């Protein structure tokens, strides 16, 4: 004997009726663009400059739908008499999106950050062959790649950034060291030359070093150092000719030249080897390029400038 129909039947009817009376969740796609999460896997973009033709992606692709051609290029030695080197030149990089199953393995596996996901998905074609996107097309997708998601609060910086920061800190330290040495020498020389009083220093090296050691930024340190110096100056009673300023002998910041020198030495360190050209970056962003592209171009611009600068200074010496 079947069990008698229960209230559940009516509940079911109630549910469908309620659903019918609430607005549908359908998105009218071609008229209304879908609301996709930013990391949607739409299409794969290639940052050609980063690709070293290591073939990792092509080898790991489960569908074998990445096609790479390259040839060896001999790079002449940097210095005369050096060994010439070879490097791979990318000739063709194509992904067949008719085969691709959007597993993302290629993006994961690329050791050089050359492949990225872009949320762009409207690239259907009338001919299946047109779904094979060549290098230039893949490069264009690069402009649609969203910026990387912000790090979580308290998360460790990426390794690259950590390295950069460490290098910057080291450069600062060295510069400060050099400045101190120079200041000492200068102070001694000047003390010998004119033991008379000095104009009050406008930069307090001691404060500066302490703050730096505390991990403050150069700018802050310099500003505080200047302020400290000003304080000392006023403490000294505003006598510009006051004899034997106490700081004169204690190891450092006696002479204004030394201070200036220290500042000069600290300056390039303060903007430690600008890895990144903010101006270029902003301009490209404003032009609507993706942040990655902008960042890359900005880096390139910065590198160029650095190179020019170093060449210039070599010429000076």
């Amino acid at each position, binding site marked *: *004997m*079947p069990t008698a129909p229960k209230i559940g*039947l009516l509940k*079911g*009817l109630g*549910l*469908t*009726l309620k*659903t*019918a*009376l*609430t607005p*549908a*969740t*359908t998105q*009218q796609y071609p008229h209304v663009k879908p609301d996709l999460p930013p990391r949607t896997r739409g299409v794969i973009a290639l940052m050609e400059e980063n690709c070293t033709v290591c073939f990792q992606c092509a080898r790991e692709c489960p569908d074998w739908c990445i096609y790479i051609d390259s040839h060896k290029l001999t790079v002449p030695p940097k210095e005369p008499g050096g060994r010439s080197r070879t490097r791979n030149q990318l000739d063709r990089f194509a992904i067949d999106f008719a085969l691709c199953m959007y597993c993302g393995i290629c993006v994961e596996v690329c050791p050089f950050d050359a492949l990225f996901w872009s949320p762009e998905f409207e690239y259907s074609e009338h001919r299946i062959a047109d779904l094979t996107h060549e290098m230039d097309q893949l490069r264009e997708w690069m402009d649609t790649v969203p910026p990387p998601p912000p790090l979580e609060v308290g998360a460790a910086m990426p390794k690259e950034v950590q390295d950069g920061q460490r290098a910057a800190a080291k450069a600062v330290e060295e510069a400060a060291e050099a400045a101190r040495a120079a200041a000492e020498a200068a102070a001694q020389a000047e003390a010998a030359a004119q033991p008379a009083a000095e104009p009050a220093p406008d930069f307090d090296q001691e404060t500066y070093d302490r703050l730096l050691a505390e991990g403050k930024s150069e700018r802050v340190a310099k500003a505080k150092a200047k302020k400290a110096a000003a304080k000392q100056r006023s403490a000294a009673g505003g006598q510009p000719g006051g004899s034997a300023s106490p700081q004169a002998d204690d190891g450092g910041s006696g002479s204004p030249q030394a201070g200036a020198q220290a500042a000069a030495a600290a300056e390039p360190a303060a903007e430690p080897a600008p890895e990144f050209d903010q101006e270029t970056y902003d301009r490209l962003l404003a032009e609507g390029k993706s942040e990655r592209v902008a960042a890359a171009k900005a880096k390139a611009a910065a590198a160029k400038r650095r190179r020019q600068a170093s060449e210039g200074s070599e010429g000076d010496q």
Partner: protein
Amino acid sequence: MESILTFDSLLFTVVVKVLVIVAFFLVAALVVGYLEHKVMGHMQDRTGPMEAGLGPVKHGVGQLVADGAKFIQKEDIIPRSADRWVFAIAPGVALVPTLMILVVIPFGPGVWAENLDLGLFFALAASGVTVIGVLMAGWASANKFSLMGAIRDAAQLIAYELPLVLAGAAVALQAGTLSLVEIVERQNELVLFDTIPVWYGVPQVIGFGLFFVAAMAELNRPPFDMPIADSEIIAGHMTEYTGLRYAFFMLSEYAGMVVLSALAVVLFLGGWYPWPGADLPDGAWGAVIGTVTTIAKTVILAMVMTWARATFPRLREDQLQRMAWTILIPLALAQIVVIAIVIVVLP
């Protein structure tokens, strides 16, 4: 009362009646089919067809027209081992009964094709003919799924035709006539306890439920679509059909929804009267109001069928049969006995 479609020339009358019925049949099937698409879509939290439109009116109103155009373009395939002749006419046979029931259904005062004295009998008898078309289709297809579907359909028809007929018979008993037009008139005169005017749907609420459930089963509408259960036997008797012939089966399903809903309206919901005990003006206005009322009620009932379809899962074959034989038929018999006693006892 004469049908408003009656003219002096008999031939002309026949032609007009046939044309009107066929036109109504096609339009009603399209409208109800479209409404089902939309209603079921919204019940499933989507919008249903949105694109195809008739002129500037979008929201998919032209969807079924487009579907029809597509069906016409499809290749008409007849399997090599099929019984060609039977295979070819089966969809037509399945379609005819629906058209025939339309002949006797009154839509308003004077708005009917024929007022047969045996109207109810005619309608119920004709509704059973569909299964012959289905059996022909299933047998002629030379496909085991088709045959199983057809056999299931026949078994289902036998099981559910009984409660359908018994529920109808109870109405005829209470009205004292088999003419559908007179059933509507008598129904409007029914006054319960000398105060409350009601339709037959109130004293015969069980019969109404039985009739409605049996009608759904007879049309193979989910949740009673075991004969065309797609997960088991592909599409039952329609498995081998393509193109226009397939469209004919679909058409007869949707038109069947309209026709049986209209029959339920006539038998239980007061036909063309907007409310129980209502009085319609004579002449054209009465006909218009009556027709609109009947069609509105019919569409509502058809949408309730869709509602059930969107809500309930398909019954298993044994559950289907058990439900008919152990619940519906005994209930129908009990009800007809009670009605008969009440009719005799009460003056």
